[in-house]
């Protein structure tokens, strides 16, 4: 199996090591010679260079292999609490599809602690893992053309908050209050953050 593949002449893509802190990986990869950016996706990582990758193929392969035994990031994991109201337009649909009472959907969602697994789709859109398996649902058959910023949503094994008004196919179960998910300082939620929703 290839250790990495070229993503054009300024980026490479490789498999995301299992069980290693995404935050630690970003820190290490960004320190590789010539790397200016890193994207962590569910199964893959991409490193972006400001020139042709400066590391030769062999050194890249060993640098990637070393990520598999990386210790956790030095700084402690951040805990973030988000105030929410569970009044989303899909709450009844979610209750029906899961066979749970609406209050039980709310209770299950609010009682879990989530972790930012990846950030993608839109600036600051954090895919949170840790959703109770009873709430795992496929996306809506028809996406909405516009989901309001701050909407709290679930789909598949994830929960997320939409940082901006955007199209979206997730089930809307509530909204975040008193918080902007993305502003001029960047994304509120960062890779590895632990997140709780407080009704």
């Amino acid at each position, binding site marked *: 199996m290839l250790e990495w*593949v*070229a*993503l*054009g*002449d*300024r*980026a490479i*893509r490789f498999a995301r090591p299992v069980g290693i802190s995404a935050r630690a990986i*970003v820190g290490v990869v*960004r320190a590789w010679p010539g790397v*200016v*950016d*890193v*994207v*962590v*996706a*569910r*199964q*893959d*990582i*991409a490193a*972006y260079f*400001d020139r042709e990758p400066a590391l030769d193929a062999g050194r890249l392969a060993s640098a990637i292999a070393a990520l598999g035994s990386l210790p956790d990031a030095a700084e402690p994991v951040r805990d973030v609490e988000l105030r929410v109201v569970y009044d989303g337009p899909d709450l009844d649909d979610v209750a029906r599809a899961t066979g749970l009472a609406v209050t039980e959907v709310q209770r299950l969602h609010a009682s879990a602690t989530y972790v930012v697994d*990846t*950030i*993608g*789709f*839109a*600036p*600051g*859109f954090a895919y949170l893992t840790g959703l109770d398996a009873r709430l795992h649902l496929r996306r809506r058959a028809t996406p909405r053309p516009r989901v309001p910023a701050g909407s709290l949503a679930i789909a598949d094994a994830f929960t997320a908050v939409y940082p*901006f008004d955007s199209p979206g196919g997730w089930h809307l179960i509530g909204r975040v209050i008193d918080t902007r998910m*993305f*502003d*001029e*300082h*960047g*994304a509120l939620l*960062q*890779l590895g953050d632990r997140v709780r929703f407080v009704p």
Partner: protein
Amino acid sequence: MTLVVVRAAGLCTVQDLGRRGHMHEAVPPGGALVPELLVNANRAAGNHAGAPAVEVLGQLVVRATVNLVVASSEPRVLRAGEEMTVTSEPLRSAYLAIRGGIAAPRVLDGHGTLLCAGLGTPLRAGDALAAGDALDEFAPAPEPFAPAEVVHVLPGPDLDAFEAGALDQLTSAAYRVLPSSDRVGTRLAGPVLARRADYREVSRPMVRGALEVPRDGQPIVLGPEHPTTGGYPILAVIASAELGRFHAIRLGGAVRFAVASASR
């Protein structure tokens, strides 16, 4: 202020050479669609190469409120009260630099408008633009520039998502640049790039210049405001040195692709 927007048709935004270091929070690089033309406008105005300038996708009319030097491709003195029109035709984009660069706040390590991140807004009539202090008295002269006719691509990385022969299809005939293209992606119409029916989409890291291919087989070339992750497989990626010349092709124009030789 030094310039007032009289009329902005299409999309006119302040841009520079983009942001670095924020893709891990899903902030794409952004920046000028055709960096070479932004650099040329800045050089003609006597600015640092990457000073903020106005990107015009359509047409922009500005009026000077003081005497000043501006440049699109050549420097020009604009007297107070005088108007100037900048039109992207015959290319897809044009740039207007003010001597000193445009004063724009630095947010997340860049000055450019990034609509997907809510940073900045499109210019509208009445907006004022002020000059900054990005002068470079040693600015070199603008360099010759022409849009691409043939664009070289590096194959992959998702070749296994396509039927055999998809790369041959890509290089078999010209593609047309569709008017629905924007700074997120350039939509192309041409030979169908057939995907394997059993390919399962999974969200993966994306890169500017990637030819991502939805089920209909018509490629989309990712632009400065592309999502950092996406589910469509990538058949090939445009050589980075040719991406600006690709993005300079006007809407409705044509492009041919060729596979870059391994020694490039």
